[in-house]
């Protein structure tokens, strides 16, 4: 059984940085997916975005990919569902959220990393994941 690591909400300092704001927005969008049970900071916290003032977004990392563009990495605990389809849906959700927030131009590639499975979620064979 996978342990769930709920992502902490970024503090006021997080809103100051577009990088941290993007991490928080992406993680919220991913966690809203019914097949996503939680976020995982990854080994040695490599999927953590730290902000000033001690705020942390655990489960998302944002790395500069080019001028004013960021590569996003999400480390997630999911239900046992088809993983590639799930990743595609998560990417679409994140991009929609970024568009709604006006952050889409900053968003580059989205790496989806499945850290663990939430066994309690069952296995919806043959069904869509959202």
């Amino acid at each position, binding site marked *: 059984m*996978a342990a769930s690591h709920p992502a902490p909400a970024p503090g006021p300092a997080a809103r100051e940085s577009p990088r941290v704001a993007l991490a928080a927005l992406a993680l919220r969008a991913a966690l809203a997916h019914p097949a996503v049970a939680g976020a995982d900071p990854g*080994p040695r916290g490599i999927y953590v975005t730290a902000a000033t003032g001690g705020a942390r977004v655990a489960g998302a990392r944002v790395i500069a990919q080019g001028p004013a563009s960021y590569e996003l990495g999400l480390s997630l605990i999911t239900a*046992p569902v088809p*993983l*590639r389809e799930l*990743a595609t849906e998560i990417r679409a959700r994140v991009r929609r959220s970024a568009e709604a927030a006006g952050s889409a131009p900053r968003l580059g*590639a989205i*790496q989806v*990393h499945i850290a663990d*499975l939430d066994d309690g979620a069952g296995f919806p064979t043959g069904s869509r994941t959202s």
Partner: protein
Amino acid sequence: MIHLARALARLVALLLLIALATTGLAVAVFSIEGGRSGLSLPALARHLHLPELRGTVGRFLAQLERGGGIDLVPLLAGLGAVILGVVLMIGVLRSPRDRTVVLDEDDDAGSTAARRRPLAELAGVLAGQADGVTGARVKVRPGRHGGGRLAVRVSHPPARAGAEVKAAATDALSTLTEETPLSARVSARRAGPGERGR
């Protein structure tokens, strides 16, 4: 095993560096004066009992050279040194196996990857749902250039044909292996007396 070898190699490297630094410092300090006393190299050798050590080692080597029967202690020490050397070389040269399996990769959209454990669990669930399977054990081996291989062992009741159950499990795993760089190798065996059939 690899992790143990790497930890041992790091520990030995640290100890060797400390020993080298200490030796260098001692030699530097004992090079201040000449002659055979005070801060001189002969004095350092005396402090470290090097003449006695030379005598002890000399006697040991002479004993070895005398021949005759095989001396067990030097033999075991030599074998231990060889094994330690091989383990240290493995620890230095081999990198630990990547725990992540890349399922797809796209420069623009991004990649999808999964750790070995969730993939093994998922494959176990899928194989376990196949008709005739009473149990499944999965090992995931990440490939060097993305993807990986699932080694799946399923068990089945004696009344069912192994080939049939193997085909059913392979088919069930296609959800995971189709259109991904994952391959599955399924082997089937009869379930033991304690395992329940379906």
